[in-house]
């Protein structure tokens, strides 16, 4: 038994309490506490990932009770990737937030609480704890969206909360069906008894789980809270929600589908369904992004589309497809955070999130423009970047199993995204009409480096594919093995 996975949850939880007390202190203390805490969580995360790499999967049995009765936590090669994404994303996001603006009261504690919930979702080895952590995460996210209390925040937070509660209830009903049929909540034990479940009940539970997590990851038509929530939460939080939290729900969905529900053994048609859902998301997400003028909403719909790419890779139903999907997950974390963070500089310079007011931002904020350019190249899928490699692998995987139509969908999606990112560039590159002195905002160190690192990461995942792929292959094998 190893207690490391438990600390992944306890540390951010304790930090949330400390940060809540620290909220009474001055802004500098708050900031230092938040950054140091997030870095501590990131260091712990690296330790865990390292331990998994060296010793294989880590199991924790809380209170010393083994699985059918006790509560278990488990970190293997598959969820280690997502734990790494969460830990590093949290630290980078906190540094950026601390550099970009003052923390709103309650913001740092809620972010730590969200991180604790995220680690819980990733490490939980039984369905009920998964449910508890998903609910905790959705309450924290709703509070974070509503926190700034500006124009649309409270309404967007309420909307997210209602959808979160609804998705939580649907998930609980699915868990209840599974428990009723198999008599177990632990994922490993359910997997051993799932064949006893009558097909119709199985179908209902499967549909419930896909719908419940579909709300969280933004499956069309369950995506519509997303654009509003991201626009309200602000660029720095939206980067974390779209870049990091969405991947955590995706990881949970995949673990539940693969392991307790064993969709691979059950039917190949089910992975085909994932492929179809992914294709709808790719086309729908890109088309809706095309219709947006507000940069944050545009990026939100682009997230919807990219969940589609990931699902298409996974829905290919082959090992290669799964690896390609995971590869796209890693790329999407880097490119979406880079886009949201550098887009924030555009919005600040233009005084509006409307892309038509972006005249002159390229010369006013050249660094942010360069980062946005690199990240946009990645997200569209230009050759030297990771985005190209992962899309290419996804296309290869779906072509091998399902023929030409998914490849056409990917190509169409790429064309559409090229159109709308090109449009943003066109506005940004127009020199500002009036020679109004563009107040050169000083960019401090915390605000400067996380986007640069994310943009470098976009290039690195493409150039370093040789080192990244074996790692992802091991993760895919761990998911398949359960």
């Amino acid at each position, binding site marked *: 038994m190893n207690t490391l996975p438990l600390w992944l949850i306890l540390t951010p939880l304790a930090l949330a309490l400390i940060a809540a007390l620290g909220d009474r202190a001055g802004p500098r203390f708050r900031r230092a506490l938040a950054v140091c805490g997030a870095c501590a969580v990131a260091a712990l995360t690296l330790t865990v990932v390292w331990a998994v790499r060296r010793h294989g999967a880590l199991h924790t049995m809380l209170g010393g009770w083994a699985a059918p009765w006790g509560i278990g936590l488990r970190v293997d090669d598959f969820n280690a990737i997502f734990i790494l994404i969460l830990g590093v994303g949290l630290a980078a996001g906190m540094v950026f937030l601390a550099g970009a603006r003052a923390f709103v009261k309650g913001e740092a504690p809620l972010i730590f609480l969200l991180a604790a919930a995220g680690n819980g979702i990733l490490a939980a080895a039984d369905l*009920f704890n998964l449910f*508890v952590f998903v*609910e905790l995460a*959705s*309450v924290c996210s*709703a*509070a974070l969206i*509503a926190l700034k*209390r500006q*124009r*649309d925040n*409270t*309404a967007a*937070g*309420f*909307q997210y*909360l*209602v959808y*979160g*509660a*609804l998705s*939580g*209830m649907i998930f*609980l*009903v699915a868990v*209840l069906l599974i*428990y*009723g049929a198999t008599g177990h*909540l632990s994922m490993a034990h359910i997997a051993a008894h799932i064949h006893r479940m009558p097909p119709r009940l199985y179908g209902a539970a499967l549909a419930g789980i896909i719908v419940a997590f579909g709300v969280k990851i933004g499956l069309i038509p369950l995506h*519509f809270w997303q*654009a*509003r929530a991201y626009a309200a939460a602000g660029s720095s939080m939206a980067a974390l929600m779209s870049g990091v939290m969405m991947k955590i729900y995706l990881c949970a969905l995949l673990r539940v589908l693969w392991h307790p529900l064993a969709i691979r053994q059950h039917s190949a048609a089910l992975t085909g369904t994932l492929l179809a859902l992914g294709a709808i998301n790719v086309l729908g997400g890109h088309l809706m992004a095309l*219709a*947006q*003028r*507000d940069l944050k*909403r545009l990026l939100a719909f682009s997230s919807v589309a990219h969940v589609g790419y990931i699902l298409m890779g996974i829905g290919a139903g082959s090992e290669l497809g799964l690896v390609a999907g995971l590869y796209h997950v890693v790329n999407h974390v880097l490119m979406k955070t880079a886009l949201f963070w550098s887009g924030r500089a555009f919005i600040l310079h233009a005084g*509006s*999130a*409307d892309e*038509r*007011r972006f005249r002159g931002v390229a010369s006013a904020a050249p660094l942010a423009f360069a980062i946005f350019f690199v990240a946009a190249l990645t997200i569209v899928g230009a050759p030297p970047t990771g985005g190209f490699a992962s899309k290419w692998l996804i296309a290869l995987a779906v072509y091998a199993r399902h023929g030409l139509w998914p490849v056409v969908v990917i190509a169409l999606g790429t064309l559409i995204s090229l159109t709308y990112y090109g449009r943003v560039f066109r506005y940004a590159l127009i020199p500002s009409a009036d020679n109004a002195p563009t107040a050169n905002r000083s960019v401090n160190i915390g605000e400067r480096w996380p986007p640069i690192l994310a943009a470098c990461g976009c290039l690195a995942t493409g150039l370093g594919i040789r080192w990244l792929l074996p790692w992802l292959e091991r993760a895919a094998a761990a998911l398949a093995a359960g």
Partner: protein
Amino acid sequence: MMQQAAWIAAALVFAMGLYSLCTQRHLIRLCVALGVMETSVLIALAALAWRPDAQAPIVTGADGVYADPLPHALALTAIVIGAATLSLALALTILIFRTHGTLDIETLRDKGREAHSADGSMVGEHPL
């Protein structure tokens, strides 16, 4: 028989909650609808634990059938989570009333649209 009645009751209550969640326009009514749906899940959990002629799952040493204690534990946790969610929803409702002066989602959506078009961006989404 008992159990089936409870299942049917749970399904009915769930449907009622879902129906009002989809049709009501007032935010507090939406909160009530969420609470109602939460309750239906609790009924279903209780139904799941039911065994014919079973006692409460407190081991006294006497022989006999016990009800399944696990769904009871789940129900307790679900109650706590439901309370937390509902209290946050109500707190947000108060904030929305303070900032927007209305709790009607149609009006809120129109206000959101106005704010968006004042910004020059495309129209907003459906608020709920």
